[in-house]
């Protein structure tokens, strides 16, 4: 890989800017395709279109042109991020498990007693109100939010903030009854059915999860299905 291509690729990733590295196979000529920009002397229009479709879907792969030549489209999307609202017991299992799945995890809870280093050592913790913290983090389509406090004072503003973003997954811990009341409050706050349909509550796949680790598993399985398939079973 040419030095300039590598350095611009790394700069795009540092800027959290989606980019596709296009490699002609087997010759190896390389260029970068962005959503709104292409290298001078970059690939032909059909390859650029395919690279942009790949950026959209997040799926890397081979594009075969009508003349039989092939290009490898390597998508580098911004990192997956997961914001956990509430430094509760389940969060202690969910945070490290999500890290292993490749998420950059942030735990948000203004209650200092909950966010002690003894409970959360290897994870980024913000002692802030969730709505302000989430607004500052600029959630994108590679972000997920799960509320876990059971406290409407903390969960509701976080959900409102998440619903105003492009977050691909928004989950809310709580029973069916709790969730129904939550939906009523958010509806009263001005969110319509289409917006509220983005909320996954009660959170997670129905796998009979009981322990914190099992509940974390059900949440991460649902999140993975939404990320990869756009829908959960």
């Amino acid at each position, binding site marked *: *890989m040419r030095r300039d291509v590598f350095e611009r690729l*790394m700069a795009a990733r540092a800027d959290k800017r989606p980019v596709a590295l296009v490699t002609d196979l*087997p010759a190896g000529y390389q260029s970068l395709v962005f959503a709104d920009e292409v290298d001078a002397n970059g690939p032909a229009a059909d390859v650029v279109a395919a690279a942009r479709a790949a950026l959209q879907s997040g799926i890397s792969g081979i594009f075969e042109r009508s003349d039989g030549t092939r290009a490898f489209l*390597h998508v580098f999307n*911004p*990192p*997956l991020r997961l914001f956990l609202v509430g430094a509760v017991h389940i969060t202690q299992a969910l945070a490290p498990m*999500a890290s*292993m799945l490749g998420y950059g995890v942030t735990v948000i809870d203004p209650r200092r007693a909950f966010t002690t280093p003894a409970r959360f050592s290897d994870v980024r913790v913000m002692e802030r109100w969730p709505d302000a913290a989430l607004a500052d983090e600029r959630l994108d389509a590679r972000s997920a939010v799960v509320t876990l406090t059971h406290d409407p004072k903390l969960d509701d503003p976080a959900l409102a903030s998440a619903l105003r973003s492009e977050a691909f997954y928004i989950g809310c811990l709580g029973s069916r009854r709790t969730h129904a009341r939550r939906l009523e409050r958010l509806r009263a706050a001005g969110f319509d059915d289409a917006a509220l349909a983005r909320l996954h509550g009660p959170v997670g796949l129905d796998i009979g999860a009981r322990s914190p680790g099992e509940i974390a598993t059900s949440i991460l399985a649902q999140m993975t299905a939404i990320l990869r398939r756009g829908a959960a079973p």
Partner: protein
Amino acid sequence: MAEAETLSGGVEDVLETAARWRAQGRRVAIATVVETWGSSPRPVGSQLLVDENGEFLGSVSGGCIESAVIGEALEVIASGAPRLLDFGVSNEKAWELGLSCGGKVQVYVEALEP
């Protein structure tokens, strides 16, 4: 087509490490899975980083083709010319190696310009 992800958090990033190794003056090659058929243990976009001494990071398979790819990567570092490698892992061979893949992968190996 499988999906490639750029991972953050708990998983070490191959390209970040490539940049660091290069900055240390090491000569490196990057191997990337560009196509898979059948059941292959690592998705398209998976990468393996190799330096001139054969030190490596990341993976392009469950372990069945790593040593072959590292050998090719050393030659790519020496010559500077990229290579496109095809690996078909027969079920019999996979069994011998204690692997369950039995798939096929195509791997692109390129040197990083110093």
